[in-house]
């Protein structure tokens, strides 16, 4: 060897370097392809995962009810946490499942199953407390687990338990209002979720680095103040339960409405449920507020409306009498009365309500057509039912699943005369208890139909309160004269009934009308031995202050359902209102 390096060795080094040089050029060519030619493709792929759009949830509005005049919350939000996982970024699922299950207090295999899921968003547990969230975050901070996060959620809490559950409805796990006010006013309560469009890290946390980010703050939902009076609601629910029990009925409903503005003060159903545990309910029918969702053939309480219509139309006069034959044969069918009607006799208009004469109601319908059942009479009665009393269409009360009921067409169909004769005493048509209560209200308040409402006012997101005004739907339902006549009639009817007469109170006006309605068989026709008992009535002083409507489904006690089952329930509610709520007594007494 000498000082000159081995030429062969030098060549070999150069060979190695040539290799490096070629690879380097190859790399640069490849980089040019990836970064310049294919840049758009890869940028799209990057954006697809980096650019995330998601919502910042708005806080749902609180629901208030009235404690006499003060609004107190009956549905609140409670902060809860949802534990979620992104299985894709979890390296050791066994280990993670073990640790997470320990915190959640569930079986490891349950968690592991979810971690083995295909989704990149697996919900491991819902409605967890802050303590659970903190433990999860501690594990994460210590590097014990990755890919498991706690997300803020809220859940509804009900400081008054089951109170007014069907009126309130509930919020499902997806945050949507179901049934009741929660469903009907979902838009207002939900508010507007904020929107984020941002480049985020893999956990979805926005990076500050981009000017393309969009951030819209959420607008919290409005607070809703219900017209419901908490104490009245509590007592109504108790009385309903008791009344149904006394009547050996399994279900029923009752409501109290202010006839002078349409505000529903209390609205109850039985059976009921606990909205905090809505997911444990087996029969979803119990979610329904039967007062608005379950129309029924109202029965004789309809006669109040028929009488008012005939009087208002001028077809009959207050002191008019007529010969009642005790039955009418119409279209191969016979309209009969109850056995205690006293047989064929000369009757007054008041007798029609007092004795609850089906033939009398039919006679009223005849008078509306010029002394016979005809299209003219049917159309006039239809006009009253639909355009005055607002039957056959939803009241638009703030409730989910409101049913419109059914009023037969006066001109189209077979056997229209008998069908319309039936409607005059509340059969062959349907209405919800609320529709009936609102219609009766319009008849006894001087003739104004107020849209029934559950909302007294709202709090906007800044806490500003604005009251809702009563909404007049029809200010000429019946004349004020007819209205006061009906108020008188109803008092007479109450006093003339052996069951309800004891509910008349000195110094107050108490009136009402029973209804015993046949129950339609699902397959057609009517059950022979099953009836719904209804009662519509009012209490007040100088004028009716509360209209009450009760419904007792299929009571098993003997006697007419209307008077024997619904009557006492109405009476107990009337007494409750007079005794515990500020019904003003008749002036001068």
């Amino acid at each position: 060897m000498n000082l000159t390096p081995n030429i062969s060795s030098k060549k070999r080094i150069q060979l190695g370097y040539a290799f490096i040089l070629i690879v380097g050029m190859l790399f640069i060519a490849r980089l040019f392809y990836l970064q310049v030619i294919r840049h758009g493709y890869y940028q799209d792929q990057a954006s697809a995962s980096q650019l995330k759009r998601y919502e910042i949830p708005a806080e749902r509005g609180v629901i208030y009810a009235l404690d006499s005049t003060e609004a107190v919350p009956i549905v609140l939000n409670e902060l809860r946490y949802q534990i979620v996982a992104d299985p894709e970024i979890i390296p050791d699922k066994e280990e993670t499942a073990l640790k997470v299950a320990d915190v959640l207090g569930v079986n490891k295999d349950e968690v592991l199953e979810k971690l083995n899921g295909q989704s990149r968003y697996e919900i491991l547990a819902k409605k967890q407390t802050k303590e659970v969230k903190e433990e999860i975050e501690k594990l994460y901070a210590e590097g014990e687990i990755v890919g498991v996060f706690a997300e803020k959620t809220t859940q509804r809490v009900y400081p008054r338990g089951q109170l007014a559950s069907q009126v309130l409805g509930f919020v499902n796990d997806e945050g949507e209002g179901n049934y009741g006010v929660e469903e009907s006013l979902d838009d207002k309560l939900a508010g507007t979720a904020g929107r984020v469009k941002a480049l985020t890290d893999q956990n979805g946390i926005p990076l500050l680095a981009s000017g393309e980010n969009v951030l819209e703050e959420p607008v919290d939902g409005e607070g809703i103040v219900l017209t419901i009076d908490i104490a009245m609601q509590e007592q109504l629910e108790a009385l309903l339960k008791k009344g149904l029990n006394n009547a050996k009925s399994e279900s029923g409903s009752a409501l109290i409405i202010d006839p002078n503005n349409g505000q529903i003060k209390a609205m109850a159903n039985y059976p009921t449920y606990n909205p905090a545990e809505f997911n444990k309910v087996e029969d979803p029918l119990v979610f329904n507020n039967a007062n608005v969702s379950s129309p029924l053939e109202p029965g004789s309480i309809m006669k109040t409306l028929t009488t008012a219509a005939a009087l208002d139309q001028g077809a009959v006069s207050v002191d008019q009498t007529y010969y009642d034959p005790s039955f009418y044969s119409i279209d191969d069918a016979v309209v009969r009365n109850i056995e205690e009607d006293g047989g064929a006799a000369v009757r007054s208009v008041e007798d029609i309500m007092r004795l609850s004469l089906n033939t009398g109601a039919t006679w009223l319908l005849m008078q509306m057509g010029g002394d016979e059942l005809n299209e003219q009479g049917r159309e006039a009665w239809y006009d009253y039912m639909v355009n005055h009393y607002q039957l056959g269409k939803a009241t638009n009360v703030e409730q989910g699943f409101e049913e419109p009921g059914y009023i037969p067409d006066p001109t189209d169909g077979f056997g229209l005369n008998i069908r319309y004769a039936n409607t005059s005493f509340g059969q062959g048509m349907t209405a919800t208890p609320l529709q009936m209560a609102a219609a009766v209200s319009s008849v006894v308040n001087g003739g104004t139909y107020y849209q029934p409402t559950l909302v007294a006012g709202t709090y906007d997101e800044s806490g500003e309160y604005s009251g809702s005004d009563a909404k007049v739907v029809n200010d000429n339902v019946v004349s004020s004269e007819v209205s006061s006549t009906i108020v008188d009639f109803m008092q007479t009817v109450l006093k003339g009934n052996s069951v309800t007469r004891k509910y008349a109170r000195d110094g107050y006006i108490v009136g009402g009308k029973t209804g015993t309605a046949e129950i339609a068989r699902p397959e057609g026709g009517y059950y022979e031995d099953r009836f719904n008992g209804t009662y519509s009535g009012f209490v007040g002083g100088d004028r009716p202050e509360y209209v009450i409507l009760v419904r007792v489904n299929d009571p098993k006690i003997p006697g007419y359902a209307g008077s024997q089952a619904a009557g006492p329930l109405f009476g107990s509610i009337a007494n409750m209102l007079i005794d515990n709520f500020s019904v003003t007594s008749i002036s001068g007494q």
Partner: protein
Amino acid sequence: MSPRRTGSRRRFAAANASGSQSENIRKHRPDYSLVLYMTLLLALGAVTVYAISPGITAAQGLNENFYSSKQLISIGLGIVAFIVASTMNLKTWRKLETPLLVAAIVVALAVRLFGDPVNGAYRWLEVGGMSFQAAELIKITLVVWLAGYLTRRKMEQKLNHPDTFKMLGIISGITLFVVAGLQSDLGSAAVMLGIIGFMSLIAGLSFKKIAVAGLVAIVLVGLFIAVSPYRRDRVSTFLNPTADCKDEGYQACQALITVGSGGMFGKGLGRSVQAYGYLPEAANDSIFAIVAEKYGFLGTSIMIGIFVALFRKIKIVAENAPNDYARLLVGGILAWLSIQMIINVGAMIGLLPLKGITLPFVSYGGTSIIFVMAAMGIVFHISKYTIAGQRESSREYGRQEKAKSTRIVRRRWGEA
């Protein structure tokens, strides 16, 4: 070594050459461009790590400058390693052959016995809060030991003797067994086999025999891949990286997305998004992709340019090394750094399978930084003893002449 020791250069040459080399090698100005390119790469890495440190730490609950400050400490230690290595007499390296070998074997076994597997591979040893990557020690040991061994064989005129091939075969086998087998670190094993192959090549072993050995190595590597599901996955992922972007191919796909989304000019220093949890190992093995995202094609091509320029400088030192031993050392280091760069970058741009090795100088990671800087110290040291007149470039020759004129000053700075 004491810079004041007179006549050390003479002694160095004599001792180092073991009698086979001339004593007339004159010490001259080292090749500072080595330091320049190394510094550029270190700075690029440090700045990149600094920029993505908040992104990585955010998910780990660490201080946001955790990675950048650790990287700066590593570079500091690397500078110490560089200075020590650049002032160390080559004779010392020859003395260190056996201690290094023992240390490497101990560490290699300790990693398997006491180390915790990371992604299925035993590569790290936790020592007092610092993690030590065994492969780095093994690489430098391999270079130092092979340089000594091959120099001895050459002196003994037994370079192409079958015993040499046997020995190289045994070394390759042990490397494969320990690094690819016990540590499941196929990437480092490939770098080491490359070092063995390239050092054998420049030592003067017959091409044919190296080719045969290479084939044997390929078969062995193939077997190693075939027996481990982990490595099979990696290879099948490599063959079709975008087939399974959600699972096995995730890192490969994310690397391509990261590189591709950088575009011509990049997103800018603070605008990397992929580092925020999308791209695994963003600061370590995948840092090239982050560089590509931040600085674009412009940045990556310049960076590869710097690497190639650095390798060219190392090549020139190797070509003009004063003796076989020095040439083999520099050649081994050249193989080490260049193969590691090629495997790392090749994986990031979808040309090679992901191997989980660092990009020299740029990647985050103390062990890698310290050992590659030490290796550069050796090259820098040898660049002071390259043979004048063999320069390819007259510019370097001129610089050499200039260096001569300032020799007195230089001499005080340090020698050998």
